[in-house]
């Protein structure tokens, strides 16, 4: 295929693709450093700085808003959700792939059906459960509930990974005198590390992104996370603090974008195994 690649055409297409995904973010970055006087002057060129750029909006975001709290809450929630997800989904996926026999064969589809019940259907009853448990307005409500999204997804992803590990490996370990748990822990698990890595990334990203649970369960600023806190705190009625909003967006998007981008091949491999396992 490579010989047939028409280079300029290929690079033009790649550039278009990248422009599509990045233009709004580039514009957001441009906005962060604009002075209000220029930003809201009708007809001024939005793509250049007609007056000198300023750091005041970025500083405002970190010193005068609850954004640092939101970010910290998001990180704590994300890490705990990842931990819960891995602890529950890894053994479950291994069990379905190896131990439960024919019963586990169709489980890929069953897991998908769980994934089909969307948060928009569950948020009202889950809100009642959260209130009953006394967790409303705390980050713990989200730590408890967000694994409903990540566990089915990660179990499905890992199922493919475990199925792609040759069963002969377990059998050899068993013949060598390992117990089944040891075979899982010492032999199969290391083979599935890329899958677990993909799971961690996906679980973190899904927990960060959820909006409906975050706005429903938490209405106090101190316990809000980024996805619900930024739109409520930096938009008051009809007043939008645009440069600070854009700062909040890019502060989140750029580091995560780099992390996900570097993990790109990893994530693709994650889905490759999941697909192969489903066949």
């Amino acid at each position, binding site marked *: *295929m490579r010989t047939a690649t028409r280079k300029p055409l*290929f690079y033009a297409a790649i550039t278009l693709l990248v422009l599509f995904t990045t233009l*709004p*973010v580039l514009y957001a970055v441009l906005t962060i450093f604009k002075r209000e006087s220029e930003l809201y002057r009708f007809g001024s060129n939005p793509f250049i700085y007609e007056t000198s750029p300023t750091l005041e909006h970025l500083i405002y975001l970190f010193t005068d808003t609850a954004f640092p709290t939101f970010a910290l809450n998001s990180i704590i929630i994300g890490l705990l959700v990842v931990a819960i997800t891995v602890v529950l989904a890894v053994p479950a996926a291994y069990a379905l792939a190896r*131990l439960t026999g024919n019963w586990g064969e169709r489980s890929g589809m069953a897991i998908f059906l769980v994934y089909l019940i969307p948060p928009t259907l569950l948020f009202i009853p889950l809100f009642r459960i959260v209130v009953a448990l006394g967790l409303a307005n705390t980050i713990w409500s989200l730590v408890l509930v967000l694994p409903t999204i990540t566990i089915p997804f990660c179990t499905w992803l890992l199922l493919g990974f475990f199925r792609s590990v040759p069963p002969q490996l377990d059998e050899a370990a068993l013949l060598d005198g390992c*117990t089944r748990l040891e075979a899982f822990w010492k032999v199969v698990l290391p083979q599935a590390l890329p899958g677990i890595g993909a799971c961690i990334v996906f679980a973190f990203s899904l927990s960060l992104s959820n909006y*409906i649970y975050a706005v429903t369960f938490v209405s106090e600023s101190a316990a809000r996370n980024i996805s619900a806190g930024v739109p409520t705190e930096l938009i008051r009625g009809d007043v939008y603090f645009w440069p600070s909003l854009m700062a909040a967006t890019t502060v*989140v998007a750029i580091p995560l974008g780099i992390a996900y981008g570097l993990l790109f091949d990893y994530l693709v491999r994650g889905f490759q195994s999941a697909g*192969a396992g*489903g066949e």
Partner: protein
Amino acid sequence: MNAGPTGSDRAAPTRPDGALARLALALERPRVLGALMLAPAVLYVVAFVAVPFFIAIALSMSDATVGDPQIDTFVGLDNFIAVVSQSGFRLALRNSLLITTLTVLILLVLATTAVELLARDFRGKRLVQVLFMIPWAMPVSLSAITWLWVLDSQYSPIDWVLVQIGLLGPGGTFGPSWNLFYLGREGLAIASIVLVDVWRTLPLATIIVLAGRLSIPRERLEQAQLDGAGFFRILFRIIIPALAPVLTVAILFTALLVIGEMSTIALLTRGGPGHSTQILPFWAYLKGINSGDLGQGAAIALFLFPVLLAAAIVALRFAYRAGRD
């Protein structure tokens, strides 16, 4: 482990009689170990997905409100009938389906194209991968806010460009106004929402399809090329048919992400103007939480479930069968 009779040599490995030894033996049976490893996840899902799901069904058939949340009065299908008879319902259902369908169709084309580009090796691939993943790295609500600014009714940079090239403004092709009001007009607002949904789900769709694309044996593509097949012939005769199962999975994943998400609408249009961009999830939120009518909120949220279920079963059957061939 510490509780084991470590000092005793009575516990011969062949004849287990301690509780721990019996446990260890039981753990060697795949079914027992399997059930134990599966149990925590299953219990969690039952408690926080299955139980709430049935509560949602019960709520939808009760007169529960935020003020009186007890599910004590059975009202049958009254909530569903009340919901269907409201003018907003038809619009919300239509928009949910329309937005999802359009998004998925555009995604199919864009993701297949992106996959053909990203399946190759080229200089600067790492950088392209990073830039490509940025939409997915943003929480959906922040993507929505970014687009809200790009599509601003007064300061949209797109409007500014259109004015500069003479398409907008007095004497312009698109009318005398200085702005197009992307989110203030029904057709444009729906198109804008679709654009935002395509933008935010393209990375995930591409990753799924790319996974399938890279699984096509290289020899098959090279053989086809040796046989003199051109790029488009290879694309339509080999790549796309081979991708069918994985495209189905990609469609299902992204469709579920799009149809269940309310933050794009909540932040971009708030369902307006009027109810013209209303979707079922956001309407369920407004009814159930803002107006406090839990029963009707649950009924609206439940509406899509049979549709999603049927679509998913058909799609997965197809993917399963196509994957076996």
